[in-house]
């Protein structure tokens, strides 16, 4: 009974939990309820992935209304993987949240914070699960609005500006997406993505379809912070509370990349894209993004901001695979989607531990902390190595497939860019390592008595760190699922 409603429960459970949590008294209960909800959602997402990993597709009709009239949730390997990423990160983030939130957010806002957090999870999971493009817009707004609220809770006053900036940019993005959806609806008369995909080929040459496509692409390029539409991201990640940064960095942009994949490959079909300059445009923007954002990252003085710029560069890597439009490229995209969530999750958590102890993530305030917080420091080093793509870490697997995809296309320029990007990552990661370890703690430093972060923060951080190492050796889940997904996205493509 429950199993057949699994796909819906994943979305509905956090949605129902949100108002209940908001009504709870401040204290530990909101945290406890959210944690339980997230863990059960994670368990359900695992079951869902196991169900579809064999290649079958779950179609769930909401309220018993048959598609294309009713809303359909359509789960294949691609979105099951995305739902797993979101729920897994949520499940690891919440135990971490207890201490971190207590130190960064005033107590009277705790239940509201957790309620907004639940709504954000609902939105992201909803985007992943749904097979209806308007329903997708609704969930997009749920996740966006709640993340504006979450970001604005940051301790510094700049959090408000950052949140406002994101609000404006995000709303423009969402509006563009809605315009695109409206145009598609006008042309095809359907909102169900599968149905739309069948009706679109006949309309490929129609100018309205091209306009709709352009609106959707720009709208989501804003949401996923594709260079040069990324300017909201560094501020949002820097000033948001640590927990929010961890969660958003590891999931929000990934979900947006997923929507891109879905729209490009499942709805429009890559044969449509090839006729437009979109794929070349993606490649150019990705190359520019990877190089420029890595340089920006090198010159940052705040660890969170540095990692935020690195995230924009990494999004470039993910979209490269989309630009290639090949089976190998898409595998690389999906694998990196998963692996990047792991590495950025681990890194932002470790930085959050620094913030927990020192109250800031500015580099000069963290000098010499590596010796006082060895476990946090080791987590940053391993997360950083994964970001660079050193063998033995998850990041290496991503790099492997990305470079292979570029070699297959004989695009040597992009091969060079990927490798140079890794070297720039060495520079910015080592910048953090050197400050944390070699720079002596400043004279009459107020942090001289700082010791290691509490276990409630270290354990979730190290879970993700170990996951980075584990997925560097066992790639059944990542590469296996990705290849399964690619067969559905690009039917007929050889592996």
């Amino acid at each position, binding site marked *: 009974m429950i199993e057949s409603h699994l796909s819906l429960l994943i979305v509905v459970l956090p949605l129902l939990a949100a108002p209940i949590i908001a009504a709870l008294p401040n204290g530990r209960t909101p945290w406890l309820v959210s944690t339980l909800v997230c863990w059960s959602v994670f368990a359900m997402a695992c079951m869902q992935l196991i169900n579809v990993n064999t290649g079958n597709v779950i179609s769930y009709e909401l309220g018993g209304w048959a598609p294309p009239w009713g809303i359909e949730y359509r789960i294949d390997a691609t979105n099951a993987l995305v739902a797993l990423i979101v729920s897994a990160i949520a499940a690891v983030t919440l135990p971490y949240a207890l201490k971190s939130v207590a130190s960064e957010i005033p107590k009277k806002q705790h239940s509201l914070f957790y309620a907004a957090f639940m709504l954000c999870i609902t939105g992201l999971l909803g985007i992943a699960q749904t097979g209806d493009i308007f329903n997708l817009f609704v969930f997009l707004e749920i996740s966006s609005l709640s993340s504006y609220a979450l970001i604005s809770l940051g301790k510094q006053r700049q959090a408000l500006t950052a949140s406002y900036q994101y609000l404006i940019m995000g709303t423009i993005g969402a509006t563009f997406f809605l315009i695109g959806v409206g145009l598609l609806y006008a042309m095809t008369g359907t909102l169900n993505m599968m149905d739309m995909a069948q009706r679109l080929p006949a309309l490929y040459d129609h100018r309205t379809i091209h306009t709709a496509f352009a609106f959707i692409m720009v709208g989501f390029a804003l949401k996923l912070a594709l260079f040069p539409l990324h300017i909201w991201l560094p501020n949002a990640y820097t000033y948001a509370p640590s927990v929010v940064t961890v969660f958003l960095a590891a999931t929000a942009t990934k979900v947006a990349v997923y929507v891109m994949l879905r729209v490009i490959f499942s709805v429009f079909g890559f044969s449509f894209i090839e006729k437009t300059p979109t794929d070349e445009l993606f490649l150019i923007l990705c190359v520019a993004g990877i190089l420029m954002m890595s340089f920006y990252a090198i010159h940052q003085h705040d660890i969170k901001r540095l990692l935020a710029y690195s995230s924009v560069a990494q999004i470039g890597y993910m979209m490269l695979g989309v630009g290639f439009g090949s089976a190998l490229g898409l595998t690389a995209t999906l694998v990196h989607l998963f692996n990047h969530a792991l590495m950025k999750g681990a890194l932002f958590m470790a930085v959050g531990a620094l913030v927990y102890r020192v109250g800031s993530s500015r580099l000069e305030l963290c000098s010499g902390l590596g010796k006082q917080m060895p476990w946090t420091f080791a987590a940053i080093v391993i997360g950083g190595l994964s970001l660079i793509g050193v063998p*033995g870490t998850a990041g290496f697997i991503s790099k492997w*497939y990305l*470079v292979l995809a570029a070699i297959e296309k004989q695009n040597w320029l992009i091969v060079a860019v990927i*490798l140079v990007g*890794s070297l720039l990552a060495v520079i910015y990661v080592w910048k953090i390592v050197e400050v944390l370890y070699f720079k002596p703690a400043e004279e009459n430093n107020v942090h001289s008595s700082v010791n290691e972060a509490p276990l409630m923060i270290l354990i979730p951080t190290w879970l993700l760190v170990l996951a980075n190492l584990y997925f*560097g*050796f066992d790639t059944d889940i990542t590469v296996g699922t990705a290849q399964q997904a690619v067969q559905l996205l690009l039917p007929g493509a050889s592996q």
Partner: protein
Amino acid sequence: MSPVELMLAALLIPLLAALLLGLSDKKPNLREAVSLIASLSLLATVLSLLPTVLGGDRPFITLLEIVPGITLHFELEPLGMLFACVAALLWPVNTLYSIGYMRGNKEQHQTRFYICFAIALSSTMGIAMAGNLFTLFICYEILTLSTYPLVTHKGNEAAKQGGRVYLGILLSTSIGFFLLAILWTWYLTGTLDFKAGGILSGKVAGPELIILLFLFMYGIGKAAMMPVHRWLPAAMVAPTPVSALLHAVAVVKAGVFSVVKIAVYIFGLDTLQASAGADWILWIAGFTIITASIIALQQDNLKRRLAYSTISQLSYVILAVFILAPLSTVAAALHIAAHAFGKITLFFAAGSIYTAAHKTRVSELNGIGYRMPWTMAAFTIGAISMIGLPPTAGFLSKWYMLMGAFQQEQLFAVLVIIASTLLNAAYFIPIIYAAWFKKAEQGGDTVIHGEAPKAIVFALMITASLTLLLFFFPEVPLQLANSLIGERP
């Protein structure tokens, strides 16, 4: 135990030791006992694999498939056996030396030092036994990363700068070139296994072969071919035991070992010979040998002089392989062992001088032979081996190298070897002369000192005798080197 279990043991003993070392923090005696026992059991393990390999067996084990088609695969072949033996033989000696040195100089963070050392040794074993390029690459990178904390051990500004150069060059060459070359090879051939005769024959030719070869040669920054040699002098900020075992043996030999493996098992000597695409390497290696020797001549810091001497000696191995004669390949394999014993002795002596007399410069060594007779005797033996005179191991490899060069009528290689022998003599003999025949300066701030701690002296006597023994009993390494080129002894 079966050979496969022994191979696994060789990988796991150092790792297990690292774990135990972590647990024995703040108990120096226990910690050093663990180090010694681990290094001795690794030696026993590696030596008990020797008869299997000499008997012609190639034990292998596939641990797991990382991405479809690419596995973590270990396979023991003669060259790897030779490299593993050298590293395993010198680890216990070096541990003994480390105990004397680290205690004598009252170094900080000694537990971390021993842990990183153990991890480095485990990855060295991994490199020696790697059965495909992928496994080799993983171990290669772990070796780089595990030695970084050792290079920057002192934790001061100089260590930070040295560490930057070290990590910067080694990581950027390996990610920028080596990884690309591996991926390209995979794309061309669909396999990364080391196979006798190579896997690239017929798959790549002309300019593409030259580019691929270039990516491999400069991707393996650990081989220190100019201009990517700068990391080696930079690594000299490390405590001397690190410079001795890692930057004269494990790390640098891992570099030239990989070069030999790739030339023999990936390209195949026949393919290289037929394509003439490898000639440029001879020139670069020759240039490196001569230039590094000239730079060594001008260094007053003893360790830096030794470092530049290492750079020059590493290119001997590269030169020997790319002469592309069977005999010179034997020479390359032998030189990996011969140089290891000689150079570790020299570094041990340098560290011994530093510990006893706190001297780091060549110009301060007048008359030191009488204060530290054992140390300087060992130094003299090591230096003779570097120059390549009998009765030391260095003579052996140089002999084979020259024979190979004559066989291939490589006049350039012959000239390089002769010129560099003269240069080697020019920068080692003055040290020996000063130590034994010059009078120590009197007065001023000269420190009255004697020999270094017993552990140090004992260790350097062992390596010096190994240098001599290898000359008189070269059968085992020679046999291994011969079966590398497919000859049954």
